């Protein structure tokens, strides 16, 4: 255990948390479930002067259903999302992404906001949220700003959060119209896994039966979780045919910046994008009909 030499703070309001972070300066690291932070501490990759726990900040907790959609406090755990039937019904891809993280023990403490702030290219919840046009509310200490999730990541393990800033809430509009969506992480076993590739797809059909909105998002296919707009463009305005979906999947596979590493080979990651985008949409359509 290399973790020592830092102070630990437990603010009980957002105002107190922001004030603490401002006082403590850039050496202070906000922490929620600590499932990533603690690993980095132990590995010596992180040596903070202070940890500021956000777990007791009420403004950051809770999962709220609004008339426009869903608002997730940044400290909502993966398990809270997993256990919510309303989320499972209206945001199935997010539900699947959150339910597959680590093990139940990890999901009980790991937060969705923490998953985003850790900004790993493999972040499961990020892919699920990208499919639903999530927007991040960032508290700056003197006010707040809203950033679309597509602009939240600045690179591997980097976000646009400045010193002293806190991700407070993630907002998702409820898709209008008939929507089919799903998330699949490609792994070798059934739990405690990072995705070798994370694949998400959503289509929302308009009144004319054509695809009004398409979202294709990937994890481990670039420096950050990302959307593949060219693949989305292939579907929007079209009828949801097998040919169109297969072509969109092919575009996504080609666009993906997948790499060879000891965790997985590039050709296989690409191939799984090809195979799973159609399967995800098939399964989503079938489950809605069922």
């Amino acid at each position, binding site marked *: *255990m*290399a973790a*020592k030499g830092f102070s630990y703070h437990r603010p009980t309001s957002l105002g107190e948390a922001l004030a603490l972070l401002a006082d403590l300066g850039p050496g202070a690291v906000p922490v929620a479930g600590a499932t990533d932070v603690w690993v980095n501490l132990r590995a010596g990759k992180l040596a903070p002067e202070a940890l500021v726990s956000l777990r007791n900040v009420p403004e950051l907790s809770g999962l709220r259903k609004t008339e426009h959609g869903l608002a997730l406090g940044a400290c909502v755990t993966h398990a809270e999302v997993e256990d919510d039937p309303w989320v499972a019904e209206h945001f199935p891809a997010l539900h699947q992404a959150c339910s597959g993280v680590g*093990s139940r023990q990890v999901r009980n403490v790991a937060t969705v906001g923490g998953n985003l702030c850790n900004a790993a290219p493999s972040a499961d919840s990020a892919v699920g949220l990208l499919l639903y046009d999530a927007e991040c509310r960032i508290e700056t200490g003197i006010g707040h700003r809203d950033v679309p999730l597509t602009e939240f990541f600045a690179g591997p393990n980097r976000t646009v959060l400045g010193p002293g800033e806190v991700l407070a809430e993630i907002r998702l509009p409820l898709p209008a119209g008939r929507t089919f969506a799903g998330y699949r992480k*490609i792994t*070798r*076993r*059934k*739990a*405690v*896994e*990072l995705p070798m590739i994370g694949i998400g797809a959503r289509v929302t059909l308009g009144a004319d039966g054509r695809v009004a909105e398409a979202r294709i998002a990937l994890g481990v296919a670039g420096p950050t979780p990302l959307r593949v707009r060219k693949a989305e463009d292939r579907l929007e305005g079209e009828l949801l045919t097998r040919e169109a979906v297969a072509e969109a999947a092919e575009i996504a596979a080609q666009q993906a910046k997948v*790499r*060879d590493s*000891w*965790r*997985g*080979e*590039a*050709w*296989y990651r690409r*191939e*799984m994008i090809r*195979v799973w985008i159609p399967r995800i949409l098939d399964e989503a359509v079938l489950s809605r009909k069922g």
Partner: protein
Amino acid sequence: MSATAVVGKAIPKVDGAEKVTGRTVYIHDLKIPGMLYGKIKYSDRVSARIVSIDTSEAEKVPGVKAVITAYNTPEIRFGFLKDNTALKKDRVRQYRDEIAAVAATTPEAAEEAVRKIRVEYEDLPAVFDPDEALKPDAPRVHQTDARGKPLKDNRLRLPWRVEAGDVKAGEEASAFVAEGEYEVGWVTHCCLGTSGCIASFDPHGNLTMYSNTQIPSLARTDYMEALKAMGLRGRVRVVNAAIGGGFGSKLDTYAHEYIAILLAHRTGRPVKIVFDREEEFFATSPRQPVKVRVRQGCDAEGRLTFREISMVLDNGAYTSWGATTPTVMMMPATSLYRVPNVRFEATCVYTNNTYCQAMRGYGTPQVTFAIECNLDELAEKVGLDPLEMRLRNANEPGEITPQGFKVTTCGHRECIEEVAKRLDWKNKRGRAGQRGAKRRGVGMACLMHVGGGAKIYRSDGCGTLIKVDDFGNVDVFSGSMDIGQGLDTVLRQIVAETLGVGIERVNVIVGDTDVCPWDVGVHASRSTFIAGNSALNAARMVRDQILEFSGQMLEAPPEILALENGQVVCREDPSKNLPLAKVLRRAHFAKIGNTMFMAAHFYEPDTDMLEGEFKGNYSCTYAWGCHGVEVEVDTATGHVEIVKYVAAHDVGRAINPMLLRGQVQGAVMMGIGYALSEEMIFEQGRLRNPNFRDYKILTAKDAVKVEPVIVETEDPAGPFGAKGIGEPGLVPSAPAIANAIYDAVGVRLNRLPLKPERVLRALKEREAPSGPCGALQREG
């Protein structure tokens, strides 16, 4: 089968309640007053000369009591060829080489001090592939052997070769021959309880080692040698804490144990070294990677004519028991199925990879993968159903195999038939007309293993002491060790049965060399058989003493007396029955007795030591089995799902069917992990995945419903007819799965693990051997 009261009953593990309530004391929980914490500085280079070691900053860390290196401590050599040292001097040969160590008052101080040790290296060439290492100009891992004799290449001087019959004649008589190369990589034991020890000297220089070894008696001998090397003459006592998993990982002594001894001696205080999870992955010794070449043939009817196996093993940089696994691989190589002409040859090679050890199965999972996949290929050439091929060649009771094994009881055929029946083989094999991406297939593979000990050491014995108190409580002191396999439960059952008492009356004491007799160790699936026979014999001696005395008391011949239900029972006149406790007190206090009952027995099986030409009968009996599996292969992703799994084992007799099923289920999970998902990934000697996130041991969610089938053949040599079952359950999993994949989708995979990428690549290459294959090459 004889009627029994306790043996053969599904009795829950006696240590279960303690374990699930967190009361079990592992090495991690032990604290001794004044104890220091030790931590090891490992090499930063894979192959290098050590130019200098600077420990000055480490010594300044508050709480640090000692910093040791090979330059300020006596040299302690250890390992099967004594080619390893506790601390490395002059050069390092693998990343896990121990360069220095610290003892401090807290683990944090020890860690900080280790980080402050500065080592200057001069890199040397390294070699990682065993075939490369065998080339004449390859960098040499060792310049000399342990005695200083120059070595001219990286080949270990080990005589692993056996030949019987006439292989050439066998080949000439063959109508069909199958030949193949099979490759398996590193996997590791993944014990939940990591390795560790506490070394403690008393003021007289006697050493107590608190340990979690599988070999208390042999470890004691090793530590005594270490004291000798240190110029000390003290006694050694090994005391085991509870073991959180063994699987062969604790079958040898390791550098960290000698380092703890050195630090304890240097500081005059007890020193504890316990591995963290990363160390458990990279600083313990995994199962060895092997490349196996198999050729076997048969006549026109499919009867085997010859089998020839040669293999190269990656030994890593030093030599532990892993290098001796070919002596056990010989067994299935020569004797699984009736093959008259056999040849087996194994070469162990030094490389700069991590050095290897024994792991559940002791080499047989590797060689059985090769033999059993190849047998399916041979069956296809003959045009025979693999089931029929196996039945035609199955081993039979009474045969003596080419290597000289005396097959006594043998349920091989019955195991195959059970699997075929429960898997619905006839209907499910070779299913035509499957559509869609997912295809199903069935496969099977067999195993043989030692079931009655294995004389690979000069003694394969085990001692037991039994004493009985005035109330009928029985203490059993066994040389063996419980490593989670259920030995303490099984010994209780055997002794309780023999003395006619309930198992709650019987206490088993293991893991203290001051108290318990000698035993060669927990390996070779030998404990139920060897320690069981030893306990059975000692219990019979106590029983005879009690009956003899009871005969005097009751004026009845002992032959008509028996011990049952806590009573001395007179078969001819039940009115003479007496409570056992009353007899015991009478014997203790009355003038006619003035005795208490106790007995000791050392059981040495009547078997041959495996050496020289490697022929002879080295186990009292052999265990047989067959696994059958139905898989579903997703042809679009290469993913393999297990649909049904049947594991039939000839176990002699199940002393405890509940534990036995547990052994088989756990072993099968380990076997499926070996087959489908587990691999240690080394790049240039560096382990890339030393954690449970990246090392793909199967999780509870991956658990497969296994149907164990217990085939009882009642072996006359076994305690109550039992044979060993500790290892067999994982041996045939990988070939059974590989054979089922072939049945499902028609591709043969000769390399483990059978991960989705490999399956899909094989499918794509079959579709377009020269076309889009280019797209499948590794992208830069």
